[in-house]
């Protein structure tokens, strides 16, 4: 049987920087093929070549045995290659059908819409999707939007499906559903390529795995034949230790959330009477299906959203939700989930981003004159201490940093003074293994220095790994608490049963 997609010797460089060197992948119909690697390993770049967004500098692409030149998304579509991007490419104001019609094209609008609707309903039935086809996709949940994307490429007639980090934004259950769907599609003869950096997914779902590192393919194997630690070392090049380090000394309650109630921007009440405490010297992990109030909880704690009622008491600082009180001044550090939104200004320099944390403290000069030299030297020291790499100087734009280094910069700023309380919201999302463990180490160090740490994560593995106590959040409140080590299944059951 000829492979559905065979890419060989693909090289691509951006701006003189090689992103792909002699890379490739061979995917057969009927299989789920995982493309595994750290951030920046070149997985997405390779797949963007396959779907016509990038043109390779060198290399050969064969589709169903025939040599092809994919010079644009249209060509890829004609060849039956469909890609679900990590950041969905949907027109938010359009409903699912209009989005599909847009991608599929038609000579006449009315007839095209009818055809698309029929095809979409057929596919939905076949895959067991429940999806409102007539609502603007901007109003749909992330998982539903992903289904629209999958529906879109299927209706376009894709037989080679590429999904870029499809489970990054999904809960365990949603991810399992999605991957089951992929299994079904593979069984029907599609070739499914799963771009991921989650080893567990690879082990559970993939028929083959191609591992990339530094723009090159380092291995192609049967996932059942390699152990998890072998896979890990293939991905990162060296073995990384995953071991729980429990808290040494847990003190008195430091951060108290009392009957916190809050609403989303659109008025929907998503935080309902959330009550719990975080003690000094512990990491309190909040697990839960996404969209159960975690984001709003984090935003209220950061001071960017006001609660409807309730309070957050930080010992010695009073109610952080009160007018004029800012957690920042009381020793709160925050690593928000939405880095580009709340943590960094990509168009400003690294130094400016670093200085933003302490500019009001007077350390960098008073109101009359800002001390740029002090900012520069403090930033240089912090970059060295926190291992922020990939920047020539502190004056370089922060937006140029890779995800891991950007997160390290955030941590460097937030931990510039020893914090009393820390909010860490999905602190390793999108980071590779090494950067994630560096961030985790910093959190543990702050905990052991006596800080109260609130970890919010939709990645259950991360919560289980880091937390000293786990609270499960559902419908805006803490519905169960677990001491650690906790059973994964028990926590997972609490997450789902209360949803």
């Amino acid at each position, binding site marked *: 049987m000829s492979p559905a997609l065979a890419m060989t010797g693909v090289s691509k460089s*951006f*701006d003189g*920087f090689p*992103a792909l060197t002699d890379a490739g992948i061979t995917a057969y119909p009927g299989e789920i093929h995982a493309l595994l690697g750290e*951030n*920046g390993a070149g997985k997405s*770049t390779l797949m963007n070549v396959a779907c*016509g*967004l*990038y*043109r390779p500098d060198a290399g050969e692409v064969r589709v169903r045995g025939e040599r092809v030149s994919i*010079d*644009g*998304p*249209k*060509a890829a579509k004609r060849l039956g290659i469909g890609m679900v991007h990590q*950041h969905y490419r949907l027109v938010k104001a359009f409903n699912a059908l209009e989005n599909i019609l847009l991608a599929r094209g038609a000579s006449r609008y009315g007839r095209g819409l009818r055809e698309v609707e029929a095809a979409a309903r057929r596919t939905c039935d076949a895959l067991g999707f429940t999806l409102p086809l007539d609502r603007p996709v901007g109003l749909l949940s992330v998982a539903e939007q992903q289904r629209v994307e999958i529906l879109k490429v299927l209706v376009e007639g894709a037989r080679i499906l590429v999904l870029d980090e499809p489970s990054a934004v999904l809960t365990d259950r949603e991810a399992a559903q999605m991957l089951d769907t992929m299994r079904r599609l593979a069984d029907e003869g599609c070739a499914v390529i799963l771009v991921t950096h989650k080893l567990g997914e690879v082990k559970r779902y993939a028929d083959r795995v191609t591992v990339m590192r530094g723009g090159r393919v380092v291995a192609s194997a049967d996932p059942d034949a390699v152990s998890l630690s072998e896979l890990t070392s293939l991905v990162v090049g060296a073995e990384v230790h995953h071991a729980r380090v429990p808290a040494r000394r847990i003190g008195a309650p430091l951060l108290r959330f009392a009957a916190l109630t809050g609403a989303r921007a659109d008025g929907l009440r998503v935080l309902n009477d959330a009550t719990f405490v975080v003690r000094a010297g512990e990491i309190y992990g909040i697990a839960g299906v996404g969209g159960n109030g975690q984001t709003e909880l984090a935003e209220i704690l*950061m*001071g*960017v959203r006001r609660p409807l009622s309730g309070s957050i008491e930080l010992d010695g600082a009073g109610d952080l939700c009160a007018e004029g009180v*800012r*957690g*920042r*001044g009381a020793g709160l550090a*925050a690593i*928000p989930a939405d*880095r*580009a*939104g*709340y*943590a*960094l*200004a*990509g*168009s*400003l320099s690294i130094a*400016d*981003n670093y*200085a*933003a*944390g302490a*500019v*009001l403290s007077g350390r960098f*000069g*008073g*109101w*009359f*004159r*800002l001390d740029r030299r002090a900012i520069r030297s403090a930033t240089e020291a912090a970059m060295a201490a926190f291992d922020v790499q990939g920047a020539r100087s502190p004056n*370089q*734009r*922060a*937006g*140029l*940093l*890779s*995800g*891991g280094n*950007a997160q390290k910069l955030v941590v460097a700023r937030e931990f510039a003074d020893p914090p009393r309380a820390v909010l860490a919201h999905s602190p390793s999302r*999108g980071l590779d293994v090494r950067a994630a463990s560096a961030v985790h180490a910093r959190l543990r160090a702050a905990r052991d220095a006596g800080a109260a740490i609130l970890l919010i994560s939709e990645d259950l593995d991360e919560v289980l790994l880091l937390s000293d106590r786990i609270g499960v959040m559902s419908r805006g409140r803490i519905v169960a608490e677990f001491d650690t080590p906790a059973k994964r299944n028990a926590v997972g059951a609490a997450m789902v049963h209360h949803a």
Partner: protein
Amino acid sequence: MDAPSETAPQPARDGAAAARAIPPAHPSRRRLGRLSVGVRQHASARLQGAVLAGGLLTGLACAAAILVAAGIGPADLVQEFVVAIVTSPESAAAVLVQGAPLAIVGLAAALAFRVRFWNIGIEGQMIAGAIAATVVALHDIGPPALRLPLMLAAAALGGSAWILGPVLLRLRIGLNEIISTLLLNYVAFNALLHLLYGPWRDPENNFPNSQLYEPSEQLAELGWQNLTWALPLAGVLLLGGWWLLSISRFGFLTRIAEANPRMGEAQGLPMTRVILAATLASGALAGIAGFMICAGAEHRLTQSFASGYGFSGILIAFLARNSAPGVLAVALFVGTLFVAGQSLQVFYQIPASAVQLLQAVIVLCVAASDFFIRHRLRWLR
């Protein structure tokens, strides 16, 4: 330190290896090769300077070409735009007189842009400020010795009051300020017409102007040419603007408000207050510019004293990259265009609007040159 630009490339997202994109080729054109456009992440200062100078020179060349096409000899151009300004004290003074209010409106625009607030309503704020100042003048509020400072303060207040609504609406409910400030220009202008055709019509000659200000309500002359105290006032305001934007902590906060106010908010920085302060200062400066023209040049409130200044201010701030020294330089340059344009009008029957044409051509060339700083072009085969 861009103008607050919606077109600025989005900060690279997580894990951004310096990835650039290449548009798909059209198969038919493939053999000819094609132009590939990518975002340039980092441009050296030398490159930026060279490209900007190139844009400016192209703009000047286009402007000169237009005037030559309109029938003015190249030698006359040099005479009017360079020689006359440098050699004749009258012209030099005229440039300063023109430049002072231009610098202030430029600074007003720059302040608002620095917190990503598109203040298109500078003309409305000028009118509001001038009306407020004229209230003080016509009603003889305060002792004559304090009349001018009072008018100044009233103008600043009037200007800020006129921008307050759009700012609050933007901060509270996210209303687009481009349109709201633009609309308020028309409201202010109609209010001005109402006053000038109604209660404030000059009783002496029945023209739709206000009465002449009394001498204590006019900015006094400095004693050289026709320069007035408007010039030192502009100088002080520019100095203050330079300090505010480039030296003070407030200037740093405006940069965060421009780049990512949500990040500033999460860092506990008072972003709302920074945006409010910068925009109110912008409105106040616009109001002061209105006062400056009325009390320094026209000596009365007229119908069209503000006409064209608002957009000039925006373009000046853009060319000056929102910096106070830049505003000074560009304002003087535009002032030169105005003065030379006036003599072109007299001697060559070139309409006054030609000055705007020149401004536009230069701004567009410079703006277009920005593309070559922000992007990288390659010819692919």
